[in-house]
């Protein structure tokens, strides 16, 4: 049967990309735990290597379980195609490897996951790529950070760890005027809470490790090509608009049209750098995505209740949750994340660093660990852990000052979550 109406989000979360297995009829997506695929004949093999036809060669480049995951996320984000890789960081590396050459620059909001700040400042320097930092709270700083060598702008929709909501449309406008793609890390919001493409993202990236997988069991990352950027018209991205030596001179943007970026990421950066996702991880994350709408709504509702409770506690100095009345990001949250402000936020303790370190040692239900987006509630003191490699200044500006505690509110009963924080706060 051919469907006439475009399926809604919760239907896509279950079905996009996943038909029954053609060989066996298996209804759940099989785990294709194989390195390689038999060619149908000699011509078929040659055609695959020349990118003339669609198909599977080797699991470093593609895998049928991974492909279902990719199409699923592409559909949920409204993109033309996606590429799943080993981790969120691998996804960022593959994106920039496809866009940048040595000597190029990109602009990034300084309100980012601490690991991304490290990756951009240090690892990327070795590739000859330079980051220019801007301030998500001061939109004009993005314009000031641009230079003739700027090739992209990178932001997080909801920034980790701060509970900061970024004004995506305002920054998209700057990217458009500058003629560079806007890359949005949509990890904390997920497409359920934030439809980044509709607000101007050209490329969306996720750590699948967090809410998309959602169960704290698999590391992964994904790149979504929104199909919105005109690579040929721009001419600034030779990987996409010039003949490619390693594929006999094909021009990716010409051959693959509005999904050229995703294909180039796969058959160049992923092929050559090699950070592929395991089929088993792809399967677990795919299973997690089936319940994404239910989970994210419950995560967000629980977080709103916990944030409101914390705000009334006398040992808590401040709570930064964009869903709270009076929060400075509330109007941005209403615009970009109308169903809820997510499950990750920070609060400040009386007693600063000492109190923070103390609190994470007193919880019972919350797990003290360096992750977010699990079914379980998670807690961390960023200044002594995830952000400890940054300078005190960088920590403060990333929203990870000494007194800051970060929560990722899970799916347990909200009264149990609050009771655990209550007993831990009583002990400090």
């Amino acid at each position, binding site marked *: 049967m051919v469907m006439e109406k475009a399926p809604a989000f919760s239907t896509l979360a279950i*079905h996009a990309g996943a*038909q029954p297995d053609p060989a066996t009829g298996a209804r759940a997506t099989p785990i294709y735990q194989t390195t390689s695929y038999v060619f149908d004949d000699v011509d*078929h093999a040659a*055609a695959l290597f020349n990118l003339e036809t669609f198909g599977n060669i080797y699991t470093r480049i593609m895998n049928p379980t991974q492909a279902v995951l990719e199409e699923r996320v592409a559909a949920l984000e409204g993109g033309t195609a996606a590429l799943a890789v080993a981790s969120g960081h691998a996804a960022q590396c593959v994106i920039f490897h496809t866009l940048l050459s040595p000597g190029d620059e990109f602009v990034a909001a300084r309100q980012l996951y601490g690991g991304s700040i490290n990756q951009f400042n240090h690892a990327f320097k070795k590739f000859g790529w330079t980051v220019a930092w801007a301030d998500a709270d001061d939109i004009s700083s993005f314009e000031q950070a641009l230079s003739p060598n700027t090739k992209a702008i990178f932001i997080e929709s909801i920034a980790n760890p701060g509970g900061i909501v970024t004004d995506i449309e305002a920054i998209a406008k700057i990217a458009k005027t500058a003629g560079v793609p806007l890359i949005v890390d949509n990890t904390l919001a997920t497409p359920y809470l934030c439809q980044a493409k509709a607000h101007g993202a050209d490329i969306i990236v996720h750590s699948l490790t967090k809410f998309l997988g959602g169960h704290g069991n698999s590391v992964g990352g994904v790149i979504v090509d929104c199909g919105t950027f005109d690579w040929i018209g721009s001419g600034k991205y030779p990987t996409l608009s010039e*003949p490619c030596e390693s594929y*006999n001179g094909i021009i990716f943007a010409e051959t693959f*049209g509005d999904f050229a970026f995703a294909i180039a990421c*796969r058959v160049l950066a992923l092929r050559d750098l090699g950070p592929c996702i395991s089929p088993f991880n792809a399967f677990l994350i795919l299973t997690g995505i089936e319940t994404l709408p239910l989970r994210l709504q419950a995560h967000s509702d629980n977080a709103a209740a916990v944030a409101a409770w914390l705000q009334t506690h006398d040992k808590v100095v401040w709570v930064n949750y964009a869903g709270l009345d009076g929060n400075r990001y509330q109007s941005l949250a209403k615009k970009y994340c109308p169903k809820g402000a997510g499950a990750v936020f920070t609060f400040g303790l009386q007693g600063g660093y000492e109190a923070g370190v103390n609190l994470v040692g007193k919880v019972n239900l919350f797990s003290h660990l360096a992750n977010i987006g699990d079914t379980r509630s998670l807690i961390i003191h960023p200044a002594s852990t995830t952000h400890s490699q940054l300078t005190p200044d960088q920590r403060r500006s990333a929203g990870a000052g000494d007194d800051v505690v970060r929560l990722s509110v899970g799916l347990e009963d909200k009264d149990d979550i609050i009771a655990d924080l209550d007993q831990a706060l009583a002990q400090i």
Partner: protein
Amino acid sequence: MVRHLNRPTHSVMNHDAYSDRYILDILNTHKIIAMVGASANKVRPSYFAMKYLMAKGYRIIPVNPGLAGQNILGQTVYSRVTEIGEPVGIVDIFRNSEAALAITKDAITIGAKVVWMQLGVRNDEAAALAEQAGLKVVMNRCPKIEYGRHSGEISWAGVNSRTISSVRPKLAPRGYQHRLIRSSD
């Protein structure tokens, strides 16, 4: 990017969005395609599309005045659609939007059933003419991509096929990595 030439105020079809059924019906019914602007250059999109569609069982008749009388993928090249001496179902236009009008008139002359303009090609005046003459029209689409979407093959590359289905895909006789297009019911 698509340029809109001579967009008329009246149009029978919505050429901004085609239903899956409309596209499937065309690809399931017509198996002979004249490809105008076919290239002998092995890395051009038109060469990829020709090779792919031939592998799916379509007969492709290349048309390119500069290569008339020569051979692309074993098929004789014609200088013009009107030179082809056999019935043609689809005239597939791999040329710019301006050139599409004259080619569409040729397609009407030879009694083709469908005028198909490639990704990035759109000529609304040509479309209106073809529709008045009873032909179906597809603009700004690639038949290779459409076949890939409706067979599920394009999904192997992580591409959003924009289709969902609980029906098992059909394997083609050539092997596990070849699939057949869905029926249009």
